[in-house]
């Protein structure tokens, strides 16, 4: 068993910057949810930094590997895309990472998230984990990216195979896959899974799901009590902290802030002018654009169909493994992206448009995301025909800011809001 951490300098740099941001947010009462978010980000990476001295293993994983199993086994997770996102925002040198990935043979059509993670791994931006887990949740890039990473990290690895569509036989297969993953981790740690602890973790996961749905309900209010950036924070928390008290604390902070506004009959912005559906994620270099939309245009993002716990069952903590397997078929991103569109993203987007009284939709079409982009026309036409609202498509690259300058994105948004104004 090894807990070698090769290089922690960049991780420490991330922690310092995020910690400073958390302290700044703490000084502003209305930013309590943001402060909690940044605090738990700091805690997440501090856990990685201190794992070795605490005798814990660090397991790196790709998005949508449910961290609940890792928490239940007292393993420190390191979600690579999340780490890559923050590193790219804080540490200069993102283009060098892309160049490194290209030198390693990764073609430009491979999604920039995977190229960035590979580049960062090769350049040792992140500590070498004790093991790597990856999965076909949610796309071919996540399914294939792990092969090279396992080689670069030179550590034990496990590939988790999730069937594409929900069916009882698919759930059964995936449950067996999770059991295999647990056996892999048991061998790695030399410890057996503590099933009582797993149930406790799944209880946190259940509460997180309930909070998510509660927050979604609050967002139906007119005006909407929502700060646009919260959705990015929230989906991050749900991906990398699911099954922990930290995640509950963050979503409770958001819920409380939103509920207060609703009780007062106020929106997050003084004048709500447009209610917008957000489809997929804005580029990481342009998160500030979400606040700009709200500040300049009074445009509030009322729902994000790709990032919603919409349908699906309640988690039963008494059956942690089965519940977790089922959750992976309907949870945010996993359900709508890695599943058929007609009973998934297209249906949900139209429903959200109606339920949330959306007046327009903004689709962030990342050039690396073949699954999202292939749905654009279906979404656009369905929203127009069934909800009577237009959809703006913003071509971009989620991680590479040189693909489309942010100014261009803002110009297009300006024009779109003019159009929406004209429709009023």
């Amino acid at each position: 068993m090894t807990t070698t951490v090769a290089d922690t300098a960049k991780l420490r740099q991330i922690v310092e910057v995020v910690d400073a941001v958390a302290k700044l947010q703490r000084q502003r009462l209305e930013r309590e949810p943001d402060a909690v978010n940044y605090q738990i980000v700091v805690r997440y990476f501090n856990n990685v930094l201190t794992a070795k001295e605490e005798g814990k293993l660090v397991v790196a994983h790709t998005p949508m590997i449910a961290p609940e199993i890792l928490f239940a086994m007292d393993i420190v997770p390191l979600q690579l895309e999340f780490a890559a996102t923050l590193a790219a925002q804080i540490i200069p040198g993102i283009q060098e990472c892309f160049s490194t990935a290209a030198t390693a043979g990764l073609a430009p059509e491979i999604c920039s998230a995977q190229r960035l993670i590979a580049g960062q791994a090769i350049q040792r931006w992140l500590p070498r984990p004790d093991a790597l887990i990856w999965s076909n949740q949610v796309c071919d890039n996540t399914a294939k990216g792990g092969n090279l990473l396992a080689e670069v990290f030179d550590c034990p690895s496990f590939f988790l195979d999730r069937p594409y569509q929900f069916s009882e036989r698919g759930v059964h297969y995936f449950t067996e896959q999770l059991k295999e993953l647990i056996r892999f981790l048991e061998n790695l740690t030399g410890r057996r899974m503590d099933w009582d602890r797993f149930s406790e973790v799944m209880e946190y996961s259940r509460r997180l799901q309930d909070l998510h749905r509660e927050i979604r309900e609050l967002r139906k209010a007119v005006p909407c009590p929502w700060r646009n950036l919260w959705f990015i924070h929230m989906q991050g928390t749900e991906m990398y902290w699911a099954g922990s008290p930290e995640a509950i604390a963050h979503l409770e902070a958001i819920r409380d802030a939103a509920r207060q506004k609703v009780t007062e009959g106020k929106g997050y912005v003084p004048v709500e002018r447009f209610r917008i559906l957000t489809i997929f994620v804005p580029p990481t270099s342009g998160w500030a654009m979400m606040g700009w939309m709200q500040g300049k245009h009074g445009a509030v993002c009322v729902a994000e169909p790709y990032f919603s716990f919409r349908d699906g069952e309640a988690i039963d903590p008494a059956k942690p493994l089965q519940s977790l397997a089922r959750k992976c078929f309907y949870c945010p991103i996993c359900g709508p992206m890695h599943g058929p569109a007609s009973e998934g993203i297209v249906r949900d987007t139209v429903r959200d448009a109606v339920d949330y009284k959306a007046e327009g939709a903004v689709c962030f079409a990342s050039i690396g995301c073949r699954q999202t982009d292939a749905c654009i026309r279906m979404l656009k036409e369905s929203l127009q025909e069934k909800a009577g609202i237009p959809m703006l498509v913003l071509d971009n690259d989620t991680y590479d800011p040189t693909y489309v300058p942010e100014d261009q994105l803002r110009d297009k948004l300006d024009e779109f809001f003019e159009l929406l104004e004209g429709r009023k």
Partner: protein
Amino acid sequence: MYINTCSFVRGCLDLVLKKRYQFLDGFVSGSTCDCPRRLTDVWQHYDFTPFVYILDVPRKMTQAAHALYREEVQGLKKRIEESFGLHISDEALRRSIETYNRTRTLLKKLYELRKSDCPPVTGAEVLEVLDAGFKMPREEFNRVLERLVDEAGKGERTVPARFRLMISGSPLNNPEFIRGIEELGGLVVVDELCTGVRHWWDLVDESPGVDPVEALSRRYLNNFPCPRMYPPEERFDRAVQLVREYRVDGVISEVVRYCVHCAHDQPLLKRTLEGEGVPVLELSLEYGASGTGQIRTRVQAFLEMLEARSGR
């Protein structure tokens, strides 16, 4: 579809939109990769055919994966029977398996002939044959293929090979692409393509007493691995085996743009092959492309490099 949908799948959609598939009653797809999955969504959304079905294909080749895939194939059979008012008997399945295995056996014979120093067919011609197999009624194709194998086996025609090449990668159906390579002096003696050996190589078990659905699902999951399968070494090992058996001098690896599975495998496969002492030329292209000027230049340079290496 969007620009980042691979051109093979966009090509399929193009044919639908041009009403070239008016004769179809249904569409069946496997959940093989992002693009065909979304093509299935589009197909269903725009109601191109009354019957649309997608079956899950696991990425692993384990017993559990096989059990799932078997149920998926059984589910497809049931849905076809219900939707079209048919009964697919075991006997009919066995006859069909026999017919398709006949194709595989004949193709294996044709490919065996390509192992000789001077094969009787070019790579472009073989791709034409494979293309015909996708379009013709299978029994008729088998008859023609049988004649071709007989004639080729007589040794009356030989094609000199300056360099023996393998072509590897994404779907390829354009013989002109290979012809362009062969005009420059390389001879494609084997392939490792979605539309080549990965499509037809392994037989379905015809043993008496074996359930045909079981046999079919086992074969299609455990076949010569597609780049989507895990672990990738299964594919790489078989590619290396082909390189050795066909005494390949160099590999041309073509990746259709946005064929992400192949793109991810590419650097690992290249390293594996180069470890075997076989140089690899990587080409990124659109599906259906023939040898453009740029590709010809690169192939020419590759062949010159092979020449220098061999000291010929």
